[in-house]
């Protein structure tokens, strides 16, 4: 049996699914970690509930997002967590696989690089999705936020969130390309996540930045700014996928997908060739 040949296929989806399946299984084997992470969710929502009492409602209304700060912040924090868990997990898992030596085994198999990266990214997507749903549930049930919960708004928001994730996954692959070479440190994720959390309007409306032109301009370059803006318009103000501002957000995100994906995968390929030249496919 061991010697007998078998039919070999070249299925990209099968490889991507295998990476997603195995790594999700590893992730969910850490049950205590999952439980404690989920238990921390109500605490972070509560912090924004009480912070919201200090925020002036006029500045929020002026930005076009209504007057309910907790709903505004809940979307910002839940979505940020979703996006960053998805992106950061990719470079973290690659770092671990380099240290354990498992990446070498994967790289010496006929695994397609893109299938590996997509499989790993979707695992982060699953994890981020769980945290996102949990925090939204806590916000809407315990703290009674005023989000639109009709099926049309929810589906539109889900579509925009997925688009935001895809736009940002390119950044995750870029970060993974850097980790592949430098093994430690995560400059791409660190810089982009710090800028995003600070400047994308996660916990305050961007009109507050108008007094700081440089920071405001930087905020307009970040893809996440547009995802957040679109989802808030859909869930807070009842906008639809035909609303011009939401269409604009979609188009900007599409542009980022078109620009970032080929760049990121190319960078990863360059990094892979570099570590093959340097002989540093592992660091155990």
């Amino acid at each position, binding site marked *: *049996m*061991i*010697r*007998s*040949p*078998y*039919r*070999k*296929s*070249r*299925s990209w989806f*099968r*490889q991507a*699914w*295998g*990476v997603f*399946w*195995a790594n999700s*299984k*590893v992730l969910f*084997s*850490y049950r205590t970690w999952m439980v404690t992470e989920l238990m921390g969710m109500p605490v972070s929502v509560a912090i924004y509930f009480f912070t919201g009492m200090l925020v002036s409602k006029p500045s929020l209304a002026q930005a076009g997002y209504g007057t309910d700060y907790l709903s505004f912040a809940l979307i910002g924090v839940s979505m940020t967590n979703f996006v960053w868990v998805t992106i950061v997990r990719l470079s973290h898992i690659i770092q671990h696989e380099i240290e*354990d*030596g*498992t990446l*070498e*085994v*994967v*790289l*010496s*198999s*006929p*695994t397609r690089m893109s299938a590996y990266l997509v499989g790993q990214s979707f695992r982060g997507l699953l994890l981020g999705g769980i945290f996102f749903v949990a925090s939204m549930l806590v916000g809407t049930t315990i703290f009674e936020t005023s989000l639109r919960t009709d099926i049309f708004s929810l589906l539109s928001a889900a579509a925009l969130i997925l688009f935001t994730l895809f736009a940002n996954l390119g950044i995750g692959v870029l970060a993974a390309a850097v980790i592949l070479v430098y093994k430690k440190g995560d400059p791409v994720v660190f810089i982009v996540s710090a800028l995003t959390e600070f400047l994308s309007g996660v916990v305050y409306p961007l009109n507050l930045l108008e007094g700081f032109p440089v920071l405001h301009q930087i905020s307009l370059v970040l893809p996440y700014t547009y995802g957040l803006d679109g989802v808030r318009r859909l869930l807070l103000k009842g906008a639809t996928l035909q609303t011009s501002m939401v269409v604009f957000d979609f188009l900007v995100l599409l542009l980022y997908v078109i620009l970032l994906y080929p760049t990121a995968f190319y960078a990863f390929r360059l990094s892979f*060739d570099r570590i*093959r*030249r*340097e*002989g540093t*496919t*592992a660091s*155990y």
Partner: protein
Amino acid sequence: MPDTSMQPWQGDNAIEVQKLTKVYSGKRGRPDVLALDKVSFHVGWGEFVALLGENGAGKTTAIKILCTLVLPDDGEARVAGHDVVKHADTVRSKIGWMHGETGGRALYWRLNAWDNLKFFAYLQNIPRDDASRRIKALITYFDIEEYAGKLVKDYSTGMKVRLMLARTFLSNPDVLLLDEPTIGLDTSAAYETRRLLKMVNEELDRPILFTSHNMFEVEKLCKRLILIHKGRVIAEGPPSRLTSELSKGDTVELKVASTPDALEILVQEGLVRELLKTEFDGEASTVIAAVRDLRQAFSDIPGFLVQHGFRLISIKIAEPSLEEAFIRLTRE
């Protein structure tokens, strides 16, 4: 159209390496490291060949080039007929590679043995039904049935090595590249691993190129060895030929029913120059002695010993052990 990639390459050699050169660039002002310097060797189909060398000699670099993880700077290497640089993807589907230095870390510890193998079956694009059959067969073959459902984190190092070997064989590779597969194993686990390797080579008829620092296992397993030193091949051939070639013809091995101290008389009487090595098993001493003239030693020593009341059990030309040959070659 049938997939012909499954048919093993029928060329003369499973592995062919020609003038392979690799230089690692020195970082932060450190000098460049010449890991391989125009290395050439081959491994035939069905052969079990050891790649020997001291730490840093270039063994792992050679193996990693063959499994496409390191790019050479010059020269050519082919595995199962495919160039490791130009057709890296094809080579990856032809090899089974295992790096023992990871001590079993290169497995997914939060998965059980079955799931570890299933994951790599996905990566190797083995269809579901074939994968299940192969995994079952490998788990039986490598004797990990009892632990197959347990998480790898609870395995002993020996069990992890068995699982790594099973994984190496998952895709039914044409060529096996094993880098120090017994490193860090206790005596019984190392014995078991050697038994499995021999079985894989003989029963499954797969060529194996492996590295090791253990000369005992090299002698036990391999019919041919390649010795690399400072990035160059300095010797190649069967272990026995290597040791006999290194025998300078000035040492004899005596086995005498006596204590080693009593045999000092041979030095005092000028029959041997020096006793190089002595071993006493409670009844007899085995002595390696340097002599001035081999022919004279064979004619004089037996008579002398009998005259002085010793019982000579055997006398023969002493060859260095593989370990001694290795040390002599690398020092020279």
